[in-house]
């Protein structure tokens, strides 16, 4: 049971990054269906960072924990921001259709990742992964079940939770968050009161994409211990993350709980003693069906505070009424 919870929480970080990135993007009124592609891109960027670092140091079996993490995170963020910039330029500046651009980005991101991953030197990835997945709290081992359950994860898991909490506070309590929500709800009104609509949109998309990219990096380097075979599992996590955005009603704070729930469902099949493919198939239904039920409940109840941002999916062109 303890191991199951531990796995669920660890797994949740991949969803949390993706979900958080998409929430921030959607708050600016942009439905970014490119998140799966961006998460794949995060894999490529992060692994590129790790591999560059590993080849730069003299002894690749004994890397510095912090520098390794920083290189990976930086690589992932850069890749995510690059892909996000393509999306932002096409949808914000060129006002192209968001769904189409997002899907194109997912196609492109998958190809981009495969090309980069094929050329990388993967020999030191498993060493790097043990460091990245290592808990930043060395004293955790002495704390029994408490340490196991709360302090045993890699630094990226804690980063995800911190980011979610901070994003929740910024969106809800600060002026920047209020402005961003205004841009997503009614860009014309936001423009009229002097908020720089395009600036907020660009900022939200780039930030959201960078965060989502970390999810891909986490998935490969922490969750599956540096074993990369294909982009497909990362892409699947990305689509689940988009589902999770609806499931958590566009709230970063809820996304922590939602991610842990999705993480539990994602790993559940490994922990069921009667390992039957029928039961596994039944479990895989749950996240999607639950998301649909939430989506329907939300739209049938029609309550104001749980709706998607009202200009979601529509581009803003100032000269258009």
């Amino acid at each position, binding site marked *: 049971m303890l191991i199951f919870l531990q796995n669920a929480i660890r797994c949740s970080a991949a969803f949390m990054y993706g979900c958080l990135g998409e929430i921030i993007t959607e708050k600016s009124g942009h*439905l970014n*269906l490119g998140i799966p592609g961006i998460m794949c891109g995060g894999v490529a960027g992060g692994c590129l960072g790790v591999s560059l670092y590993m080849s730069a140091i003299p002894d690749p079996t004994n890397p510095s924990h912090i520098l390794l993490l920083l290189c990976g995170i930086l690589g992932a963020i850069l890749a995510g921001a690059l892909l996000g910039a*393509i999306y932002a330029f*096409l949808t914000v500046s*060129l*006002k*192209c*259709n968001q*769904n*189409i*651009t997002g*899907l*194109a*980005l*997912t*196609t*492109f*991101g*998958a*190809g*981009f990742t*495969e*090309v980069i991953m*094929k*050329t990388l030197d993967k020999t030191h990835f498993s060493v790097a992964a043990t460091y990245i997945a290592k808990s930043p709290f060395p004293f955790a081992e002495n704390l029994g079940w408490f340490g196991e359950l709360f302090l045993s994860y890699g630094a990226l898991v804690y980063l995800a939770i911190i980011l979610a909490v901070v994003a929740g506070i910024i969106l809800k309590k600060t002026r920047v968050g209020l402005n961003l929500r205004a841009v997503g709800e009614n860009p014309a009104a936001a423009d009229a009161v002097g908020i720089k609509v395009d600036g907020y949109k660009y900022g939200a998309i780039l930030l959201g994409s960078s965060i989502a990219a970390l999810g891909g990096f986490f998935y490969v380097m922490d969750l599956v211990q540096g074993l990369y075979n*294909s*982009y497909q599992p990362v892409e699947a996590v990305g*689509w689940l993350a*988009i*589902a999770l955005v*609806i499931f958590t009603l566009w709230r970063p704070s809820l996304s922590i709980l939602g991610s842990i729930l999705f993480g539990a469902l994602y790993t559940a099949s490994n922990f069921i003693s009667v390992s*039957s*493919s*029928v039961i*596994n*198939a*039944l479990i*895989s*239904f749950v996240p*999607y*069906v639950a*998301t*649909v039920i939430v*989506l*329907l409940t939300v*739209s*049938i109840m*029609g309550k104001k505070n749980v709706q*998607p941002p009202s200009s*979601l*999916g529509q581009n803003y*062109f100032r*000269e*258009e009424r």
Partner: protein
Amino acid sequence: MANEKTAVREPLFHISKRDEMPTWKSAIIYVVSVVAALLLGSIICTLASPKGDPIKFFTSLYKGVFASDRKIWETLRDMSLLVSVSMALLPAFKMKFWNLGGNGQILMGGLAANACMIYLGGVIPDVWIIVISVIASMVVGAIWAVIPAIFKALFDANESLFTLMMNYIAQCFVTLFIALWVKGGSSVLTDDQLAHGRLPVVGNQFLLTILVSVAVFVFMFVYTKYMKGGYELSVVGDSQNTAKYVGINVKGVIIRTLIISGAICGLVGLMLTSGNYANAAIGVGTAKNMGFTAIMTTWLGNCNPLAILASCALVSIVSKGMTQVRMDFKMTSDSFSNLVVGIIYFFIIACSFLIQYKINLRKKKTEDK
């Protein structure tokens, strides 16, 4: 006064909406952008592979599609499947209903067809199995599309997210039924299980698919251009209020259109799973992501059936040709074509900006003086 005016900083350019652009002009923009995208793709492939060179990229691309009769047939088959799915999505898009659920509708149609073959095989004559599975696949595909449509019509539930989720629920159904049907770990249906009720062979194994898609194309062309239903859905797409004002039953139109959309996707599922060739069976990957690819082709074709035909041809030719490029350039990954197709998408998407808007550069200040 004049001094004050010049003190105001004018932006370098401003963007305004264009009137209709002549077709030949937009066609030129599209062609130029596709060529530019291919050039960029060839450069990237050259850089990524030790075996690459840009000219060989284009010869390989050509060889991959036109080198043999079989390859041409395969490309035509791929293209016709894509055309069918695009035609299925077309009416929904014209209505501004984002049906992102093509994959799921194809899967469910294919699943229904295979279910008929398994449960009715040997019980009733094969001809009747074919008839029943055609009906079943279309009905199940339609059901899969109409569920989001009903909730969109009644409660205004966000259809792009709902249809997206339906894709994955469909995948789960496929995994579930395969787990029920296949004992042992292989999780692939065998040809023995699907021995009854295969579609007949017409000419060669590709021709039937092509003929069906021609029929679908003609139907959709006529439906959207000359029939009342097609007219109604484009009114709903342009303005729901106008539609209500002239007495169109908006909810009814949404539901009816998605039934047609889903039924055609279901039929594509049947073509993919019941064709008379080896290894035609339902699997999680049966839809080959065509639901998404068709979204791109439909939109790139600007919801015009003939233009969609062109964009489907482009995407299928590039995808098919890229398999050859991949082999010649000794690249193991099959998603290399994703990269090039993705670049083409970006370029064509950006074209829509050039066609819809124009950039007005700041006028020189000389006339003020």
